[in-house]
């Protein structure tokens, strides 16, 4: 007599698949074995989005022109409305362009102040928002339409501060690892500490663990944090954020939380500077 429901479930196939998946997962987490493949797929997806957007806009333009030919009288009325809309849009565009010029001028000023002419400005293509808001992987992709060769690990800045480093480039896109990414380490300093700050995996947050001393650490909250220049990748003494909290981590250590100055969700243009470096 059957003791259980008869099913056909070949354990061998599942076991092989399970171990194969586990092996792939381990090699990717530990050694980043498939990072180039993932980058290529992401870049291809971005391309597909851009192309489909172009096609959609082309189709909608064709339909609208066909419709316009049929209804010329209606078009006259619409054109009058369009003129009014264009006037309004033009006004907004002017303002927008003024802001863009201000941003570009700011970047130019920053470049001049850093006495470094080897800088290019790139527009953001996408940000992995789901991971940025919930998880540890904080990456953005920049558009590199002219396919300019960029150095791996070069510093990237946005707004008024550094924001991350180049991770890799795929097709015409540049992958940038943000400071808040769990795998990023940034040498920093403030009035009372030097340390390698690690990304917290939370938006705009990095942290470092320092030994407790006799100092009362709570008085240091709000202190400005700068790049220390250690490692030779980032310029020294660039403000990157401020100390927002100091928590006890263990008997001997405290965790210093640093809120970053630049918010990637508010930035459109990113600057990349410097030659190829060796480390992240």
């Amino acid at each position, binding site marked *: 007599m059957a003791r259980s429901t008869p099913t056909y479930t070949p354990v061998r196939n599942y076991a092989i698949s399970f171990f*194969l998946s586990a092996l792939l997962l381990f090699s990717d987490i530990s050694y980043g074995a498939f990072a180039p493949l993932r980058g290529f797929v992401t870049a291809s997806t971005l391309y597909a989005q851009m192309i489909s957007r172009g096609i959609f806009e082309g189709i909608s333009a064709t339909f609208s022109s066909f419709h316009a030919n049929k209804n010329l009288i209606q078009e006259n009325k619409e054109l009058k409305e369009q003129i009014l809309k264009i006037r309004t849009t033009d006004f907004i565009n002017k303002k927008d362009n003024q802001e863009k010029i201000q941003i570009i001028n700011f970047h130019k000023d920053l470049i001049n102040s850093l006495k470094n002419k080897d800088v290019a400005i790139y527009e953001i293509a996408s940000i992995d928002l789901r991971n940025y808001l919930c998880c540890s992987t904080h990456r953005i992709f920049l558009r590199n339409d002219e396919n300019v060769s960029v150095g791996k690990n070069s510093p990237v800045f946005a707004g008024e501060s550094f924001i991350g480093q180049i991770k890799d480039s795929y097709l015409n896109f540049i992958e940038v690892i943000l400071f808040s990414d769990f795998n990023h380490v940034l040498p920093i300093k403030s009035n009372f500490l030097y340390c390698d700050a690690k990304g917290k995996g939370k938006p705009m947050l990095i942290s470092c663990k320092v030994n407790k001393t006799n100092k009362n650490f709570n008085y240091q909250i709000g202190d400005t944090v700068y790049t220390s220049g250690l490692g030779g990748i980032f310029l020294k003494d660039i403000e990157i954020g401020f100390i927002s909290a100091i928590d006890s981590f263990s008997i001997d250590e405290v965790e210093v939380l640093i809120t970053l100055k630049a918010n990637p969700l508010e930035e459109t243009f990113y600057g990349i500077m410097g030659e190829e470096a060796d480390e992240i």
Partner: protein
Amino acid sequence: MGLWVKKLMKFSNHLIILSTIILGFWLDDSLNPLTIKLFLELNFGFLIFTYWVFAMPEKLHSSAALFYGLVADLLFSNVIGFNMLFFIATSYIIHLYVFRFRIFSYFQLSVFFSGSSTFYTACKYLLLSPYNYSYLVLILSFLINAVLWVGLYFIMRAFRRSIF
């Protein structure tokens, strides 16, 4: 082939199933940035996959789970192997107890499938984002996914009956 006759499915049917799973993951990607502020993580992609295995166990075997997982990993994950691993494991469990599930009530089914999706979420956080691990997210996601699974079950069943 023993007690079950192995029935192969057309490639086009696999593509339809894969499309629904991709749609689910795309929904997750679109909605989760909004819902995560409310401590909710939706798992439409995973739930749709489990539905298909539950509905057609004789047609979806380990190779299908492996392939769907690989595509989901390539398009939506930060690591290769994670979805593959969970799709395989879940597929095996569903295959093992599929006839017992058939006599379960909708409530029991939704608890099981929502529990599976919560386990999936928990492992995702533990492996890929330990600093963001939150019991509140898991508990709320469990409750919401349990409710969503019932709706998803009826929608997917209607879709399956109209297609296959």
